[in-house]
């Protein structure tokens, strides 16, 4: 009788993320992963059909975890400023707590696997609906100026991701040591909100 071993599954996920972040898709193989986890390659194939299946399943798990965190304590009915701040805090907390998962997610997003993952479950369209409703409310309540979606997104989240990249690297411009604090985040947030207002 073969029983599901959650610890083993989590070990496989953690090692796969580490290997892909370190070596990319090309350097990654089922055999290498099995060795790193001290399990037989056969066990790995019980769970996953092949390398692509594994990358896509783990990618979907990480993506759902990330999007679920972004809407923690969040409601599209919140005022635009309050809701955007909750999103900033959630995104920052996840990135600071799980930098490997975020790096993995970035690699996946820019690969052909990204689209397959986004179409693999309706959960992602649920997240999109929540965000759309939030932005629509902001427009309807005259809290934000109408603009192209991509322009909006780059202004609303771009400053945060720049700060998070500095934080992950541990340095900012010219190699200056950097640690992101809530105070710095709030400074950038206030400028962002101002930029989005009508």
């Amino acid at each position, binding site marked *: *009788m*073969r*029983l*599901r071993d*959650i610890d083993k*599954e*989590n070990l496989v*996920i953690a090692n796969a993320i580490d290997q892909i972040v370190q070596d990319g898709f090309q350097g990654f*193989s*089922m*055999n290498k992963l099995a060795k790193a986890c001290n399990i*037989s*390659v*056969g066990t790995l*194939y*019980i*769970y*996953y*059909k*092949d*390398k692509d299946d594994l990358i896509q*399943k783990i990618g979907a*798990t990480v993506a759902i975890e990330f999007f679920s965190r972004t809407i923690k304590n969040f409601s599209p009915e919140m005022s635009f400023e309050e809701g955007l701040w909750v999103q900033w805090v959630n995104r920052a907390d996840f990135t600071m707590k799980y930098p490997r998962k975020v790096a993995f997610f970035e690699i996946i997003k820019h690969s052909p696997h990204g689209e397959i993952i986004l179409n693999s479950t309706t959960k992602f369209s649920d997240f999109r609906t929540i965000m759309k409703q939030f932005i629509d409310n902001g427009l309807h309540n005259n809290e934000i100026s109408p603009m192209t979606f991509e322009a909006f997104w780059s202004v609303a989240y771009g400053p945060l991701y720049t700060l998070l990249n500095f934080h992950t690297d541990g340095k900012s411009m010219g190699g200056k040591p950097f640690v992101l604090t809530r105070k710095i985040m709030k400074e950038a947030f206030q400028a962002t909100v101002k930029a989005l207002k009508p």
Partner: protein
Amino acid sequence: MKIMDTDLNTVHVFKTDIRKMDTGCAMYHKLNDHKDIQQWSIDHDDIDCVLRVVSETLQPEAIITLISDFGHKCQELV
């Protein structure tokens, strides 16, 4: 964390020498049309060309015989 819903006891994996397979060949049809096989795949990119079969009733020996009859090596991975 749930990875997939398939009952793990119905999944059988084998090391083979099936480097490639045409979708029109007899072995492909045999696996595809088999009433006791719910799902199957071969990872041609892997060094072990792993065959993965999901079947509620077939035993590993029966799958080994099925593949061997086509002149291919097939060994259960445990």
